[in-house]
């Protein structure tokens, strides 16, 4: 996959190259070849002022048009005004030719003005360029007709000249337009393609996350359901009830995880606390401070630990969170067994204390944004037993 921005640059460069080649053709043509024709045929022009004036008008229109075109600031109106100026200059030049010299050695304007039209009207609707070329061609043909010079030989010459000048110029313009359009389409396609790839990778990540959660849920829930269905698990067994309760709580938390709320962590903790209360637990949940943005992997862990403790609590639990812009401290105290978190490994260090006399578990999880250890390992403290009484 190519970088879309480089495609845009490539298109811009391509358009610029086309403009430069056109400007070069015209500059060489008008400032070298036309000057040579004028210089060589100077004595024979019927009006020197008309000859020189028409050349100058074309030169000025050419320079102004080229500069604006190369700067990328040539507006459609300016282009049309300059095109009309060159067309009229072409008529003036025609007037300066001696009789019978419309296609002779001193004529210069027809071809040059035609190229000016290509330069100025390349980006205008094709009809405008065709109209311009028609008017530019009609004038010399009309003069020839008035002079009565049109015979079979002249018709053949005109056909050759028109094909060689107007035909070639139109072909150049049309090919240029076609190539520019193709380049633009290629760019659009590349951009759309890049967007699709981006969207696809997001979709894939979301899908992979769903699959992972689904697999985790299935691996844990399926054996429970199977056991309950075939009678190998007894619903009145405390361990079975605790396991099913925990999985129900996990499902509930997963549902809460996708909810769109300003404080996802609090929302998920509240969901866990609600579920524990519904189970008959006396739960107090107190929160102070404004929660910061927390990475999903950390948030999941911060929510999962209290969930496990709440689910294992016998009768009561106190869930507290204290947050500020840089730190989140989640704590849960409950009359839960000491080993419920023994296989808990996660993104944030855990502090676990078990008070044996009171049979209560006190777990504290701290996540610090500055010292974010999302890639680090857990430093779960082994449950310690001690004696204590509340103050």
């Amino acid at each position, binding site marked *: 996959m190519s970088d879309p921005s480089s495609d845009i640059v490539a298109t811009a460069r391509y358009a610029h190259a086309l403009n430069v080649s056109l400007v070069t053709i015209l500059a060489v043509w008008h400032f070298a070849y036309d000057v040579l024709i004028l210089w060589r045929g100077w004595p024979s022009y019927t009006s020197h002022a008309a000859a020189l004036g028409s050349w100058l008008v074309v030169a000025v229109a050419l320079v102004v048009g080229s500069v604006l075109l190369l700067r990328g600031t040539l507006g459609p109106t300016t282009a049309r005004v300059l095109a009309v100026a060159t067309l009229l200059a072409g008529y003036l030049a025609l007037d300066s030719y001696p009789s019978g010299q419309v296609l002779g050695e001193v004529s210069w304007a027809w071809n040059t003005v035609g190229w000016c039209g290509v330069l100025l009207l390349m980006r205008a609707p094709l009809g405008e360029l065709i109209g311009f070329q028609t008017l530019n061609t009609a004038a010399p043909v009309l003069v020839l007709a008035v002079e009565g010079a049109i015979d079979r030989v002249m018709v053949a010459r005109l056909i050759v000249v028109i094909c060689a000048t107007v035909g070639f110029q139109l072909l150049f313009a049309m090919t240029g337009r076609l190539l520019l359009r193709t380049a633009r389409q290629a760019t659009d396609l590349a951009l759309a393609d890049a967007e699709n790839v981006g969207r696809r990778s997001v979709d894939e990540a979301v899908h992979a996350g769903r699959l992972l959660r689904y697999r985790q849920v299935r691996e844990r829930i399926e054996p429970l359901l199977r056991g309950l269905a075939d009678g190998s698990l007894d619903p009145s067994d405390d361990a079975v009830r605790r396991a099913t309760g925990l999985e129900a709580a996990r499902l509930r938390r997963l549902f809460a995880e996708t909810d769109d709320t300003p404080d996802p962590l609090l929302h998920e903790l509240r969901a866990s606390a609600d579920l524990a209360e519904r189970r008959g637990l006396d739960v107090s949940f*107190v929160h102070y401070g404004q929660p910061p943005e927390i990475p999903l992997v950390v948030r999941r862990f911060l929510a999962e630990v209290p969930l496990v403790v709440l689910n294992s609590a016998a009768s009561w639990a106190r869930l*507290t969170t204290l947050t500020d812009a840089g730190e989140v401290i989640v704590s849960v105290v409950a009359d839960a067994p000491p080993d419920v978190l023994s296989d808990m490994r996660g993104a944030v260090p855990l502090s676990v204390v078990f008070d044996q006399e009171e049979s209560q578990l006190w777990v504290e999880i701290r996540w610090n944004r500055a010292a974010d250890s999302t890639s680090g390992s857990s430093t779960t403290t082994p449950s310690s037993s001690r004696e204590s009484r509340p103050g």
Partner: protein
Amino acid sequence: MTEDPRIRVVHVGHTLEGLPGSLDVLILDLNLNGRLVIDDIAELACASQRIIAYSQFTEPDLVLAALDAGASAFVAKGEGRVHLVETVVAVAADRPYVTPTAAGVMVSDSRPDAPRLSERERIALLWWFQSMSKASVAHKMGISPHTVEMYIRRARLKYAHVGRAAPTKADMLVRAIEDGLVSAEEIAEPGGVHEGDPAVTGFQGRSR
């Protein structure tokens, strides 16, 4: 409340009208007939009435406003009888008592004029808020429950410097000096913060 021999209930009312002038402690519901009574707290504290703000609302702003106005303590309605009794007994003797709810509010106080708590005071408040057991906090901090209590009380005393001056706050500070909890030199420092002075080491800056 009436079961505790240390406490005698002499007045119960739904308004502040007809309040006896000789109460040791007044337990005042912050929401009296649908009206917040923070201003009344300030007025009563000016008249040296010790007040325990008692409320089901535990929003930090409300708790801090009650303490700033001169309430001696804040007790949340959900915190239970034991905390209320302990608070009444402590407040009657001009001693500070910090409930876990008030501790949570104090430790999360990020106002610009919040007192600067020392790291140990912060930890003591935080873990008291979390566990509601000073013995558990003491064990986790590796100190005695008495020292935990001292850190919590010292943190509370720093709040006596916040908000308007009140005789209840002054009385609490005087009792703290008598108890040896703080020295008169520490009290003399507004906010109690004076880096490098050995007499006020316990009052040094907060880490957050």
